[in-house]
Structure formats: C-alpha cells, structure tokens
C-alpha cells in the first residue's frame, strides 16, 4: 500500500454487526468531504462503502467468533482509495434467493458508483474489496 505524501490514511475497525453501518457511513462521508468532490460523489462513495461493508458483514457473520471489519481510506495520486476487509469464511453458500439478489444489487451499485473496484477472496481467510474514486480537481 502506497500512502500519498500528504499522509491521509484513516483506518477503522468495527465489529461485524449491522448496527455499526451508520457510523461507517458518517465516517466515510466526513472523510470524503475533505477532498474536492461534489456532494453527489461523496454520496456515491458512502453508498459503495456501505454496500462493501454489507458484504463483509454477511460473509463473516456466519462465524461464531467475534469478528471485525477493517476499513482503510487514503489518497493515492488523484484517487481516494477505500479498502474493506473481513476475516473468516470467504464467500459462503448464500442462504436464499433473496439474499443472493441483494448481493448482486450491492455489487452492481459498487461497480457503477466507483471508478475502480477489485474484489479478492481467499477461501477460509476472508475477502478484501478495494475501491477507488477519481478526484477530478486533485
């Protein structure tokens, strides 16, 4: 991971519980607002990160252990980067059709709203989503 010379790295770790999604959205909006982005772009980032956390929570929720979602945000060249990581079971068998549909909708939103998306899953270890948004005037 390359941190920009402006050292902008923010890291957060939250329990893998849906109660914390709202805090994450507040945090991400606040963080993104620091860069010259439109209100719409900040909103798009908020939606995408929240969806990525949904996936991370739903993936790791199958585990009985106390698990945490880790979010890192930083600026790199002319992009803000968001990395969302969960531990545990990778991509579990989905529970039902509705749940699968939601996953699809979530990824669709992420891919549409961000400029770059990369999803890495290591079976049994967890998954990592990296998303980038261009800062036009940076």
């Amino acid at each position, binding site marked *: 991971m390359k941190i920009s010379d402006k050292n902008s790295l923010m890291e957060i770790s939250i329990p893998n519980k*849906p*109660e914390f*999604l*709202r805090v994450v*959205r507040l945090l991400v909006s606040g963080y993104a607002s620091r860069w010259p982005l439109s209100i*719409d772009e900040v*909103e798009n980032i908020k*939606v995408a990160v*929240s*969806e990525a956390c*949904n996936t991370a*929570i*739903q993936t790791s929720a199958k585990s009985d252990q106390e698990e945490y979602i880790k979010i890192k945000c930083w600026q790199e060249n002319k992009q803000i980067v968001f990395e969302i990581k969960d531990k545990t079971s990778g991509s579990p068998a989905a529970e039902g059709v*509705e*749940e699968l*549909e*939601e*996953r699809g*909708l*979530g990824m*669709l*939103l992420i891919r*549409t*709203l961000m400029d770059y998306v990369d999803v890495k899953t290591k079976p049994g270890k967890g998954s990592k989503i990296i998303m980038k948004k261009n800062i036009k005037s940076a």
Partner: protein
Amino acid sequence: MDLKLEIKKEKDYTHIIVHGEVDLYNANELKEKVHMSTDRAISPNLIIDLKDVDYIDSTGLGILIGIKRRTTEKGGVLILVLYSDRINKLFEITGLNKIFTIARGFDAATALLQK
C-alpha cells in the same frame, strides 16, 4: 438508526410512509412491519412512500422486491413514491425503476391506482 413507519389503511389502498435509513440493520424490521400491516389490510393495493427515507441500501431494495412479489400474488398493485434524486438514482442504476411502478408524489400514486 430508527426506522419509523406511518401506516394508514384506506378503502382502496394501504399507505405506508417510511422515515429514516433502511439498511442491513433494519431492513427485516421494514419487511415484518409492512407484512403485518398488509395482512390485515382492507385493500391489497399498497403505496409505500419513501420521501422521508434518507438512505436505502441493497438490502432495503431487496425487501421492496419481496414486497412487490407478495403484493402481486395477492392481486394488488404496489406503488412506490420517490422524491429524492439520490434514491431515484439507485433505482435507475439497479434497473429496479423498470420493475417498480414509481410515482413522484402521493397524488400521482393514487391517480396511478385509479387507472
């Protein structure tokens, strides 16, 4: 994180106004409350008003898909009232604007029902 629902059971439709943020935390609560109110409704038609919803995630959208399915099965029509550009955009990106009947306001929603 408080989800608040105002529910009005009219002769021709049940009108549900949703307030707050709908996400993975409370989407199931939305589902259950809507089902509870429609199970004893006078009409199978449903108007769900999302004008006071600041945020809805894919889980919430998934729940709405399920509600539409259930409403159709009962011979009713589901109409969503969406004001905000932000929420409308999510429906467009996901293509759900083609699946749902969407009205810009409550009056437009009742007009659609009468057709």
